[in-house]
């Protein structure tokens, strides 16, 4: 038995780094400090594992060596005209870095799950910017917390305990005020001081009304999205009167009608509030390293997701170069999926196109996507069986630890991608010599 301390949790964007794990026979047997999601991962991750590389021949999977599977993968990728490299939100920055180099080498498109969740947040930030802060700044100073379209008690279970409601800060010893805005009474809403239940798909209207109110404009309607105007006035006053406000928004805002418009409005509202007080906003990023994937793509290419290398340089045009759109237009002719299960989350037609073409999956699990693949490369669990770096939702980088040995012979995402890359380079050099 041994214990490992200060472990970073590879589950959600909170990236809690205070876990204490007890290990027995190279298995995690006890998790201290983690939430239910965290425990489920550490205690249950090893189920439904793939332990041998698989290559599909005549419709059936055959167990092969990494060498053979990598060679087949490299063949698929070099032959493809417009390959798509998708996933990346549940792996290390180091693996993403290898993935970007591979995408550049084969002239493909690299896109992350941002496309499906917080892509609109990014576009919103590119439109208006964002007034933000690290979570510790919120903890030390915020006297008002707003969760909008986000249910942290379920999706980010320790967010409130570590950073907002249930924690004191240097300048904030009193209980903070909590406002929850959602279309239904969520678990988080139950704990709120003020709950604003708005009609579905009407976030934009509410945000615009609040923007007008904080500018001291009168609303000449009696209600907005089912909320009486007086109530909105109260909310606006609360926002203006706080010393430091923090608004966290989730997919309830980014994925409902209006998407980008919603984000523009929420970011503008928060920006405007800085004329009157201090206010910050933050997207509640889901997968533990989706932020890291955005970051590294941005510094290496200039763009955060949906980066197209088909012309030899990075191009970015979400709606055109984003995974879903490419798949719906049936343009990609091969795909590499890393640390993600898009078949379960993509629109049906997009998933079909993905499966119809040569498909390579790098994943520790036999996921739904892996089942449709032509090549499956089993990998380690990042943050459990291999290390690296991940970014918290507030852009704070944290180390992921290797806690236990992976099953014998299993490589990490990063290692697998690096070998595919060198195999691709070798194949290309060969082709140059014997065209």
């Amino acid at each position, binding site marked *: 038995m041994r214990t490992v301390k200060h472990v970073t949790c590879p589950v959600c964007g909170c990236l809690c780094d205070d876990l204490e794990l007890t290990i027995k026979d190279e298995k995690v047997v006890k998790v201290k400090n983690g939430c239910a999601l965290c425990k489920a991962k550490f205690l249950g991750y090893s189920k439904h594992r793939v332990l041998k590389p698989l290559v599909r021949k005549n419709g059936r999977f055959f167990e092969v060596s990494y060498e053979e599977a990598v060679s087949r993968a490299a063949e698929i990728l070099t032959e493809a005209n417009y390959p798509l490299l998708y996933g990346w939100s549940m792996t290390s920055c180091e693996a993403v870095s290898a993935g970007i180099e591979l995408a*550049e080498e084969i002239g493909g498109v690299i896109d992350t799950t941002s496309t499906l969740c917080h892509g609109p947040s990014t576009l919103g930030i590119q439109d208006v910017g964002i007034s933000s802060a690290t*979570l*510790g700044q919120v*903890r030390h100073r915020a006297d008002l917390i707003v969760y909008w379209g986000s249910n942290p008690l379920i999706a980010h279970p320790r967010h409130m305990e570590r950073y907002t409601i249930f924690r004191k800060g240097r300048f904030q010893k009193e209980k903070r005020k909590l406002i929850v805005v959602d279309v239904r009474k969520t678990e988080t809403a139950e704990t709120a001081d003020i709950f604003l239940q708005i009609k579905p798909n009407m976030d934009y209207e509410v945000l615009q009304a609040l923007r007008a109110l904080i500018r001291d404009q009168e609303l000449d309607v009696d209600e907005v999205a089912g909320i009486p105007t007086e109530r909105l006035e109260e909310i606006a006053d609360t926002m203006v009167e706080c010393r430091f406000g923090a608004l966290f928004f989730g997919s309830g805002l980014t994925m409902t009608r209006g998407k980008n418009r919603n984000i523009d409005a929420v970011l503008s509202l928060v920006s405007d509030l800085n004329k009157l007080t201090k206010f910050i906003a933050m997207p509640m990023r889901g997968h533990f390293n989706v932020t890291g994937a955005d970051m*590294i793509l941005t510094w290496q290419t200039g763009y955060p997701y949906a980066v197209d290398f088909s012309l030899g340089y990075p191009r*970015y045009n979400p709606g055109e170069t984003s995974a879903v759109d490419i798949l719906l237009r049936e343009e990609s002719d091969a795909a590499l999926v890393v640390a993600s299960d898009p078949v379960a989350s993509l629109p049906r037609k997009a998933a079909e196109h993905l499966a119809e073409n040569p498909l390579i999956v790098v994943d520790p699990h036999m996921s739904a996507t892996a089942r449709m693949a032509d090549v499956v490369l089993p990998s380690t669990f990042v943050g459990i069986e291999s290390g690296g770096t991940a970014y918290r939702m507030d852009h*704070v980088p944290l180390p992921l630890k290797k806690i236990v040995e992976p099953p014998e012979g299993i490589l990490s995402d990063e290692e697998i991608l690096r070998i595919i890359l060198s195999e691709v380079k070798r194949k290309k050099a060969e082709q140059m010599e014997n065209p």
Partner: protein
Amino acid sequence: MKMELIIRNGFVFDPINGVKGEKMDIAVRDGKIVERVNERKALEIDASGMLVMPGGVDIHCHIAGSEVNAGRLLRPEDHFKYSERKTATTRSGSGHSVPSTFTTGYRYSRMGYTTIMNPAMPPLMAKHTHKELNDTPMVDKGSFPLLGDWWFVLEHLSNGRIEECARYVAWLMTSTKGYAVKIVNPGGVEAWGFGHNVHSLDEQVPNFNITPREIIRGLCKVNKLLNLPHTIHVHTNNLGKPGNYTTTLETMKCVEDLAADDKPVIHITHCQFSAFKGSDWKTLRSGAEEIARYVNNHSHVTLDMGQVVFTDTTTMTADAPFQYTLHELTGSKWTNQDVETETSVGIVPFRYRRKSYVHAMQWSIGLELALLIKDPWKIFLTTDHPNAGPFTAYPRIISWLMSRRAREATMKKINRRAQSKSLLPSITRELDFYEIAVMTRAGQAKALGLKDKGHLGVGADADIAVYKINPEELDPSRDYKIVRKAFRRAAYTVKGGEIVARNGEILKHVKGATLWLKVKTSQQTKVNEDLKRRFRDYWTVEYENYPVSENSLDISHPINVEAKI
């Protein structure tokens, strides 16, 4: 296995060794300058009719880290028109004012630069900065942690505990793999945590019993106690505000008594932004004369220019309250990121226009400073990239410094009123290649305390730039366009003894080392125990997960520093 190299017959400018354009050969072996090499075996560069200088050194350019990346994210429009293709030797990239990392390294290398300092690292984000620096090829690099508003500093200095403060700074410098103490709008950045600012050196910082003056003086003492190679690196209070030249003078004065042996104890960065006279934007005037007079009479200060060029760019500083003002002034989009317990950052896109009175005055002030300060060892060429313009504008600035005509050509095109208020028409000084070599490499290396950089003496790093300029034939005053062109594309850039770029083409992608200080104090452990205890209260990450490990640097180049405590 590295080959020998000899650079023959160039006009060598090596100010640190007193070489002023003599025709000489420079010999290189194993990445270092040596006395001689085997001339028959050595690779030869024929530099006859060309300038040979140490590789360029940049003391202040925001090229990597969380704030730069937030700038990249904010500005896809900055990248669309500036894409660079992948080649057999180079990675692809994009960006004008906030280029992607690989592209940044290549662009510096093409200009003959080999060492750069990234001047604003939020300590909590140090891992990020270093990851980006790992991905910035072709140059050696260092990074300055932002310490002027760090709670540990504020608390210890306000209690007069200088030595204890020094031990924390030593710990932090080593933990974040930092190179120098950076101070930005001291006190003002902490105040920004609640949306406020401070406005003078003697204003009390809200919630902390300390003033900006005490922070600057305290950290200056700390810097000396720790024997750090560079001085404190200061972005003044009131930066970017009319009338701020008095704050700048006071800032320089406030550490006058801490100087000894004619050695600098403070570096005022991007001084242009802190040299404004006048009471508002309409009455803005240049404070360059007053600042130059002070600097000419004192030896404890170095400066860099922060020269404005007329272009579209991205402003980014840890001076988040200033960035917010800029956002209000321009109405441009705005990103802010406060960092718990330490610092902040603000980002606003910006365009410097010739026809704007204020921007044209800013352009003039930067050049006035560089020309009125007599000693080139005291003021260095920077644009505070990308704040006053991208670093790719350096060749243009060199031509302004070397040629009155070049200045006049621009002067004709700027705002009329600025033309009449500018001090430039009265300045006849034109710098020579020796002075340019000081301002773009030798002086910067010296100020940074980089012993093996910025010169071509035996034992120095073989980082060398060769430019297609014949100083015997060319008159830089008249032929300023040729000068500009030559500095844009070095004929050869040698990094660590290898030819890495030729005529603007990258021949080899090399990594470049990360320079950082390993500061040794006599009692280190005590700091750790205390730190651990307070860590959880101050930050939201575990103490153990905070430091940057040495093996996360692709090429680590620690510099040992023995502190006096």
